[in-house]
């Protein structure tokens, strides 16, 4: 993952509420077995409308998206984050995010910035013709008009973003602790590890639904 410290540029001044993952990337795009190229399907149903914000040349290629409450609700599809990343979005600003989308965004170098509704309303106005800056060093969103909105991020997630860390590599380094936990589990909850495998179930497990 590429490190992210500052995201600055034009922003889609959208503000829509409850933007679900089917809107971000419809299900028929999920048949890919790759992480790339999903930008073409991003916001397909919105872009089917005339005069939509995503095809407005003023905002083409914006690195920031400003949305309303509950952004990314719905499915767990990481394709939503891949699609945003593929269309060049590096930060989304909204009053709230779905928990799963927010986690997926972090893992793909997209900063989910939570700001109060009035700050989001102000940014939607400003972003119509001015750039917006999201700074992870100072943890602020700023505009050319002296607006300065501080935001919070989980410290570990912030560090992963700023240093482009590989979370799996970090956890694999905790192997001794994981093995120790598994040892205790084998003793206290042996049935977890001793589940019967799938083979033979068809014969044995008939009929109960």
């Amino acid at each position: 993952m590429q490190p992210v410290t500052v995201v600055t540029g034009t922003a889609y001044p959208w503000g829509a509420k409850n933007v679900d993952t089917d809107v971000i990337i419809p299900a028929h795009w999920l048949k890919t077995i790759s992480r790339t190229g999903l930008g073409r399907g991003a916001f397909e149903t919105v872009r089917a409308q005339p005069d939509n914000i995503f095809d407005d040349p003023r905002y083409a290629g914006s690195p920031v998206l400003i949305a309303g409450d509950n952004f990314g609700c719905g499915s767990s599809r990481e394709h939503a984050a891949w699609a945003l990343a593929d269309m060049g979005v590096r930060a989304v600003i909204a009053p709230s995010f779905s928990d799963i989308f927010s986690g997926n965004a972090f893992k793909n170098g997209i900063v989910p910035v939570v700001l109060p509704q009035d700050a989001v309303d102000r940014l939607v106005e400003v972003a119509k013709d001015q750039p917006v800056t999201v700074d992870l060093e100072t943890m602020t969103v700023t505009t050319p008009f002296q607006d300065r909105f501080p935001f919070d991020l989980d410290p570990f997630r912030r560090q992963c973003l700023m240093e482009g860390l590989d979370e799996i590599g970090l956890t694999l380094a905790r192997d001794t602790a994981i093995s120790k936990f598994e040892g205790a589990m084998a003793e206290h909850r042996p049935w977890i590890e001793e589940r019967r495998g799938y083979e033979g179930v068809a014969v044995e497990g008939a009929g109960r639904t």
Partner: protein
Amino acid sequence: MSSRPQTLYEKIWDAHVVERRDDGTCLIYIDRHLVHEVTSPQAFEGLRVAGRRVRRPELTLAVPDHNLPTTPRVDAAGRLLPIADKESAAQLDALRRNTAEFGVDYIDATAVEQGIVHVVGPELGFTLPGTTLVCGDSHTSAHGALGALAFGIGTSEVEHVLATQTLLLSPSKTMEIRVDGTLGFGVSAKDVILAIIGKIGAAGGTGYVVEYTGEVIRNLSVEGRLTIANMSIEGGARAGLVAPDETTFAYIKGRPMAPSGADWDRAVAWWRTLPSDPCAVYDRTVTLHASDIAPSLTWGTSPEDVVPITGSVPDPDSFADPAKRAAARKSLDYMGLTPGTRMQDVDIGHVFIGSCTNSRIEDLRAAASVADGRRVADGVRAMVVPGSGLVKRQAEAEGLDRIFTTAGFEWREPGCSMCLAMNPDKVPPGERCASTSNRNFVGRQGPGARTHLLSPAMAAAAAVTGRLADVRDLMGAKS
């Protein structure tokens, strides 16, 4: 033992902490991992590229569900028929190859146990109380019905679990949703969860793990609890729990992958310690009374847009929040509905009975009891998609398939089907569907499709009347 009273969620969490970091984030052990074809190919590819293995392949179970056509899929020799959609076929192939390469248990599309991952897990005894269970699918919350801390994850997290059998998580806030009283005539688990989402809103549970409590929940079967926990995510909550009890244990006992013998006794003894302590404190409590819950359905394009079947399409101007007013106007435009129209006057062209929310045997029985002796209305296409091969076989043993087909319903092979329209089952643009699934989002059941979420019995009532109907009128009495 901690002396502070704990919730069910806190007990499961504490039993799975591998390491606790200073900021409160914990490395949490994952006991059970379900995998399907859509959200796993990039995870296996990530492992391959990094030269990593699956740490505990025996704790993972894979089954294809999203892409499979629901038309007959095997030839006379039991071999899978070719799948016309090349991308779907490639994704299904990838699951088969990846699970073989990494040594993960895999249920093939040709097996009787194949089904929707959230139907298969509980049905085979893979899902157990007190476990942490994840899947690259947001409706993983369903498994919480058995007292498992179960939640959907993205593909990067799927890869993380495959490689490490853990996830790095921050504790959630806790919300108790208590449903008191006794459900009225014709009111089902689906109506309960729709009423809950209507009350708390689509983002009401964001940041929370919900625990469903109260007399209504205690009196529900495991199937009914699965319907409720399944749609926790539509209320914004990543996970929804029901405390394990005798109903839970009776459901699990003897299932193929459940513990047996001495392990069973030890497991049950531990499961009995899990329910929330009497004085445990939740961050938020929401209370509903069963007498306020009628057969319900959605009118808009968010699952929070809920109205009783006796109600009417709302006027957007009736909402105080300007953003909600704007959203409602857009929703009604998309849905082709006029404010003030009685819901029961809305004609439908399609009916879908299925999905991980409502495709279990009890759901099919409820729908069949309404369909029995009636005919699907002219011009309506109605399909029934059992949640798994085992559900299908059970339904056929009970003669439900004949009730449906005699009434003019299509009886299909198991899978996710028209819930999300990844396979060929789609609602055509501009057409209206009464659906037992979980999402009424724009385009969810196909581009331009208009979805009304409701219970299996209500869906059957819609099929036989050709409109959104009050199932109580067809059940012989009106409460």
